[in-house]
């Protein structure tokens, strides 16, 4: 720790200082980064660095020039280049990519939501693109970005055959609730539910399509049938801290298929509203969920490959069928529906599906329930901000036990804008439909 190079600087002039406000926050909260006490008009590079749970390093950087007082304010100043450019207060987070030399095909996902993401931001002299060495930085600050607000309670659920993790906000409640479903990658992903609870919703991150829930992947296995999702919904509805009439469905990718199928056809699941991200209504409607998944598998010959041999799966559901048995009848949905679409989604035909859903609802007369947010340049994985974007990543095919590289799509800056905007709109949509529609007079 005896940095001899910095001692040479010690006598010379002032000590630059970088601050991050707030230094601790939720992952979806903005921060302000300020660098002071530089020389006026000094070229500097801001470099962010974090280490994932798999020990990979992710980094981003931006080139700035200080003003006449020797100050850089990332929220007000323009990045002249780097992993992001322009006026981007959060660019040092969302433009992160795996550090040079990393294993290929990585995706940034926090598994342990009890601990924060720790990010260090360094200031370097000049406009650098590589060769960052912490020992030679002018200044450094550290920030912690959490997925769980203080007081949020996390409980592992294994009840009525349902597997998942429940997040409950602090306080007595009762709270509205969200059944939170990810996609065909399977397993249990908790961070979106943890964030939802941090915003005042009881949220159940549901595990399905994992080795635990699929067992022998038999259609007769009750764990992968419709009853599984209905049981999950009931668990939320009947939770003592949940206002039972105010439960929503939120799904991404295959989670959308589940959400739409259940919302329309289940007599048990009657959500107050539904949010569908990057998904489709195309599915054989008489099948169980695992039957639906199997049906998609029959179209595997429609898989395309890009110039890097990355897998493009969006054609598996195209063209959008006209046969009503092959898609959910959106004309029968009774609650508000929010669709989030990435126009560069290479994994699911979300845009085409959204158009078709709108047509169905227009014909049926319930178009007023639909809101569609379509984002140019956004890919498939529209996640909470400010998660780093990846255009492709490794993907494990569960049944074949084979690893492929899947093309998700999206251009980083536009995709990150979509994440930030859609998350705000999702929270506002949930708040509007779950917190507003009732008599608020206490008894």
């Amino acid at each position, binding site marked *: 720790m005896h940095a001899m190079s910095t001692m040479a600087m010690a006598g010379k002039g002032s000590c630059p200082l970088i601050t991050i406000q*707030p230094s601790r926050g939720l992952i979806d909260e903005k921060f302000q980064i300020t660098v002071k006490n530089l020389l006026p008009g000094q070229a500097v590079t801001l470099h962010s660095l974090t280490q994932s749970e798999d020990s990979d390093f992710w980094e981003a950087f931006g080139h700035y020039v200080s003003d006449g007082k020797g100050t850089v304010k990332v929220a007000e100043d323009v990045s002249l280049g780097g992993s992001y450019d322009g006026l981007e207060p959060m660019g040092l987070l969302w433009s992160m990519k795996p550090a040079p030399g990393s294993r290929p095909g990585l995706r940034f996902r926090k598994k342990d939501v009890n601990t924060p993401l720790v990010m260090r931001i360094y200031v370097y002299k000049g406009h650098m693109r590589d060769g960052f060495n912490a020992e030679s930085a002018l200044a450094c600050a550290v920030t912690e970005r959490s997925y769980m607000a203080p007081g949020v309670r996390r409980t592992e659920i294994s009840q009525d055959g349902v597997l998942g993790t429940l997040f409950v906000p602090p306080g007595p409640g009762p709270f509205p609730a969200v059944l939170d479903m990810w996609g065909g990658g399977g397993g249990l992903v908790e961070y979106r539910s943890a964030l939802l609870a941090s915003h005042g919703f009881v949220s159940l991150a549901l595990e399905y399509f994992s080795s635990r829930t699929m067992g022998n992947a038999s259609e007769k296995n009750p764990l992968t049938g419709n009853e599984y999702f209905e049981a999950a919904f009931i668990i939320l509805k009947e939770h003592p801290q949940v206002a039972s009439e105010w439960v929503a469905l939120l799904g991404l990718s295959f989670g959308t298929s589940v959400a739409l199928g259940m919302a329309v056809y289940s007599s048990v699941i009657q959500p107050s509203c539904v949010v569908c991200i990057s998904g489709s209504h195309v599915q054989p409607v008489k099948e169980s969920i695992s039957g639906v998944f199997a049906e998609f598998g029959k179209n595997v010959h429609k898989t395309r490959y890009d110039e890097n041999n990355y897998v493009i799966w969006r054609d598996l559901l195209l063209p959008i069928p006209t046969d009503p048995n092959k898609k959910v009848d959106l004309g029968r949905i009774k609650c508000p529906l929010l669709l989030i679409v990435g126009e560069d989604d290479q994994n699911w035909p979300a845009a085409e599906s959204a158009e078709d859903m709108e047509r169905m609802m227009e014909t049926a007369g319930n178009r007023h329930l639909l809101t569609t947010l379509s984002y140019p340049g956004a890919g498939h994985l529209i996640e909470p901000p400010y998660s780093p974007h990846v255009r492709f990543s490794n993907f494990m095919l569960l049944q074949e036990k084979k690893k492929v590289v899947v093309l998700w799509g999206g251009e980083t800056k536009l995709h990150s804008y979509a994440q930030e905007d859609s998350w705000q709109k999702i929270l506002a949509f949930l708040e509007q439909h779950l917190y507003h529609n009732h008599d608020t007079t206490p008894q």
Partner: protein
Amino acid sequence: MYGVWEGLSQSIHACTLPRFKKTSGIMGAVRNKSAQSTAPLLTATPSRALVDQPIEIGIQHLPPDKPFTVRSRLHSEDGELWEAFSHYRSDQKGTVILSRDQSLGGSYSGLEPMGLFWSLQPVGVEGLRLRKKYVETPFTVEVSVLSDHVRSSDSPVGCHVGQGLEEGAVLAAVNVERWYMAPGVRRVEVREQGLVGTLFLPAGPGPFPAVLDMWGMGGGLSEYRAALLASHGFVTLALAYCGHEELPGPLHTVNVGEQYFETAMGQLDRHPQVCTGRVGVLGLCFGGYLALRIAMEMPNISPRCVVGISGPGGLGINMTRDQTNDFLKENQKLFRFDEQGNVIFRGITMPSNVPPNYKLKVESLRCPLQLIAAEDDQCCAAIECIDEIEERLGAVGKSGLLTRIQYPGAGHLIEPPYTPSVRVSLFHTYPKKLMALWGGELQPHSVAQEDAWNRTLGFLDHHLRTD
């Protein structure tokens, strides 16, 4: 770390009346519209913050134009409950926003966005002072909203001890963490060359400006202000000089001499991550006296600037390095006591009570000095001391070195902002239990804490960081 707030959450459950009945989940039944409503939404942003950062607290989805109480609760590290409450009225949209709305009364009134933090008072126990011992963990404050305007029951006159709130229905609650250490700050125990202290280093290679941080004659080693300074980019050494078992001699006397402070300043100045020549001193009460003494009478060390808070320019007691003494025993004639028997120390620092050879050689000041004093300081005659220092500096043409700031209505213990203050607390248990009167009224004292901290950070920044 999360055990504290989990316990709080459970205590909310225990005391909440189940006011909302659930409808039964009969499958296939027609949806029943007369079901329970959701609770109001209480938000505090950021929910994790440094102690000196203001936060935004708001409540939405309340019934419009109705009375509500906002309450804060904190358990100290000793398990004592501190509490504050305040009365508001929701607007036509059913919201209460603490940075916008006036409190109609309670532990504070008026527009006070951070009132729930600085007006916290101990419940049912006398003589407490809230001081964080373990700075690597936060204080957790539970902020809740209750229906109606509820109050604490009658408190004894002359003391701010609340007896606990009647339970209005708790409608919503969140937990807020208040930290003394920013992420990346490192804490290092210092036990070299006879020193007893804790060093706090900001993140990064540095080099950084540095601060020597000292408290008063209560003794021991308080780290929280030093941790906060490091969170603002200063290498900070919290230094113990009396009342610590690892220091030589009896606990209740000062047994270290000038050499001790020279060693501390030297260690800071020569630390590989400190900019040589950019070391300042910050002290409160007797720590303020020591800061001045370092600046005026120790020729071997040159602080670049000094901040003294509520500190004397001399003491009517013998504090030379060659003699230990029991200042309480020797100087009882200079103390007074109020009606409750709380000791008022200010006589021993009144310049007129201090023999001239016990006063600091003010004229020898060589660096910028910021002196902060409270007009209701009952422990130290800080204002009178500043008056004399100002006069003596003026006489030798050194007025330009002095910045003086004084606060009406504030008491002796000017601490980091948005933290609770008390007018009286336990000072000593040896030789018998003694409560000291610090002075100050809650609201003006909190104003003083906020302003003094900003002024102190600005002063240190200006003199230590820039050219």
